[in-house]
């Protein structure tokens, strides 16, 4: 008993003693730089992770660039023809990107016509009107919608939206494969994205803004529309632009429902293949490596890449330009 206590006491003094030694080895060495290996390892690990994403992007740019360089380098195509041609038929050596580009634009515009109003309204409802309880149910449901695989949306377009459109507008006006159906469903797919991002932006508007508006006798709607939404405009713009990028890049829905075969038309009720849909279809078939056909899909790829890059730059501009700094 007494021994145990003694030992423990000894232990304590020893630990204290060691602690003192570690903390102040020698008064002259106390401030000397010490190596911290753990810090170094973690730091390099974090750097490596960041580097991987940058490296991947550079790799993609390099591959896209190299293959499209080969494409534009061959004597069969010129850049002018690529940009202005309205026929895309690799079999006969016609490489005009406009039909693919146009249908990408039409499906994306239709999608955004759905996604912006519905997504923004949903965001306003969630952030300004919904009770905390309603929000706690609705937001996860909305995010669930974002988790549905796009191939399911594609079949939804083909087996539900297209028949619906055909029964409303008539079998003759609307083709079995059409851009409108794909665009509408793509819009539904993007609604959660726009809603969720916009809701974050709206919720970030300080409460004091709403109080100021209410204090002046504004109704809830007036407060939301003329104070909260304008104050969150940078975030909302970012949401919209990310939505557009998503629409432009979306592949499965348009591959399934918009049609297989380039078609230069402004009519959304007609079938026309988008850039992404074309790449998916062509790369799925057997293409001989290093043929002009093979290289052509890289030219489409780099066009897509440049478009989304441009949108990202615009988005950054908007976020910085309109971001308000509150106290």
């Amino acid at each position, binding site marked *: 008993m007494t021994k145990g206590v003694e030992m423990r006491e000894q232990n304590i003094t020893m630990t204290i003693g060691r602690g003192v030694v570690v903390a102040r080895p020698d008064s002259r060495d106390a401030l000397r730089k010490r190596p911290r290996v753990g810090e170094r390892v973690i730091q390099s690990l974090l750097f490596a992770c960041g580097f991987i994403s940058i490296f991947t992007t550079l790799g993609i740019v390099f591959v896209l660039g190299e293959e499209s360089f080969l494409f534009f380098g061959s004597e069969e195509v010129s850049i002018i023809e690529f940009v202005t041609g309205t026929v895309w038929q690799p079999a006969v050596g016609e490489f005009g990107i406009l039909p693919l580009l146009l249908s990408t634009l039409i499906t994306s515009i239709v999608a955004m016509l759905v996604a912006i109003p519905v997504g923004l309204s949903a965001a306003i409802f969630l952030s300004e009107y919904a*009770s*905390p309880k309603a929000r706690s149910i609705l937001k996860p449901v909305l995010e669930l919608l974002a988790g549905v695989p796009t191939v399911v949306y594609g079949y939804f377009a083909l087996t539900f939206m297209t028949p619906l459109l055909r029964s409303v507008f008539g079998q003759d006006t609307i083709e079995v494969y059409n851009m409108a159906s794909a665009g509408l469903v793509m819009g539904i797919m993007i609604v959660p994205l726009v809603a969720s991002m916009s809701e974050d932006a709206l919720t970030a508007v*300080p409460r*004091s*803004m*709403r*109080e*100021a*508006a*209410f*204090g*002046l*006798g*504004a*109704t809830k709607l*007036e407060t939301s529309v*003329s*104070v909260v939404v*304008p*104050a969150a405009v940078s975030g909302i713009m970012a949401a919209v632009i990310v939505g557009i990028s998503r629409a432009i890049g979306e592949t499965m829905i348009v591959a399934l429902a918009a049609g297989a075969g380039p078609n230069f038309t402004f009519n959304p009720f007609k079938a026309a293949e988008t850039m992404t849909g074309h790449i998916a279809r062509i790369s799925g078939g057997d293409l001989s490596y290093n043929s002009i056909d093979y290289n052509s899909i890289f030219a489409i790829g780099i066009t897509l890449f440049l478009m989304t890059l441009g949108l990202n730059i615009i988005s950054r501009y908007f976020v910085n330009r309109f971001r*308000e*700094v*509150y*106290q």
Partner: protein
Amino acid sequence: MTQRATLVSAMNAMTNIGTDTQTIVAADAPKMKTESLSIYYSAFRAVADVTLPVRDRQITAIIGPSGCGKSTLLRALNRMNDLVAGSHIQGKVTLDGEDIYAPNMDVVDIRRRIGMVFQRPNPFPKTIYDNVAFGPRLYGRIPKTELDEIVESSLRRAALWDEVKDKLKQSGLALSGGQQQRLCIARAVAAEPEVILMDEPCSALDPVATLKIEELMQELKKDYAIVIVTHNMQQAARVSDYTAMMMMRSDRAGEMIELDQTQKIFTRPGDKRTEDYVSGRFG
């Protein structure tokens, strides 16, 4: 007690006697009044039994230590607490004798008549012009020239016109803190309220800006009933005509322990706790 008596006699006077007396009485009756007002957040009673008259063309200050329910009480006066889920009141709050919590009263109209200036300047991320024009625009379409006049006169009233007249199209957020707060006052004034509530309007400002706001309050007092919540006792002493002293009770509900002319509160307070507080012995 005397308060109640005057009110009763005033009411009798209004019903029985001619117009001359009525005007006198009307000037004497409080613009706003809380009667045995208790404010609850769900089950928690934040403010208990406050009876506070707010006189027209006078400044009423509410002072007291932190957490005693000053701001809660102020926010009950224009039903700002309605925005907090679960809040409700007992008792009455009247504006010109009308119960503002009565079921047939429109909360939006009430807030138009009772403006508010907040603790931190909170201009909208809009131009200076649009900030001031916000209220008037809510109440209907106004011709441009008329709106220009309202904006100018409101900014003049807030002693801000000379500083901003050349940059009305700049963002309100670009102004300094003190200017922002005066912009918020201009915005409140432009909505043509009858009462202005100020919730520690100077607590985020430096002494020079504070002085400007205080001078401004003396000007505004000529037309409005003003209620100000303040932590700064010198400020209450400098600007207000009446002072209400609040304290937290043992059950954490805030109560008003004294209400009197400011001069009296600061020289010969009736309550020992008030004396301790105003002389800086606690709080």
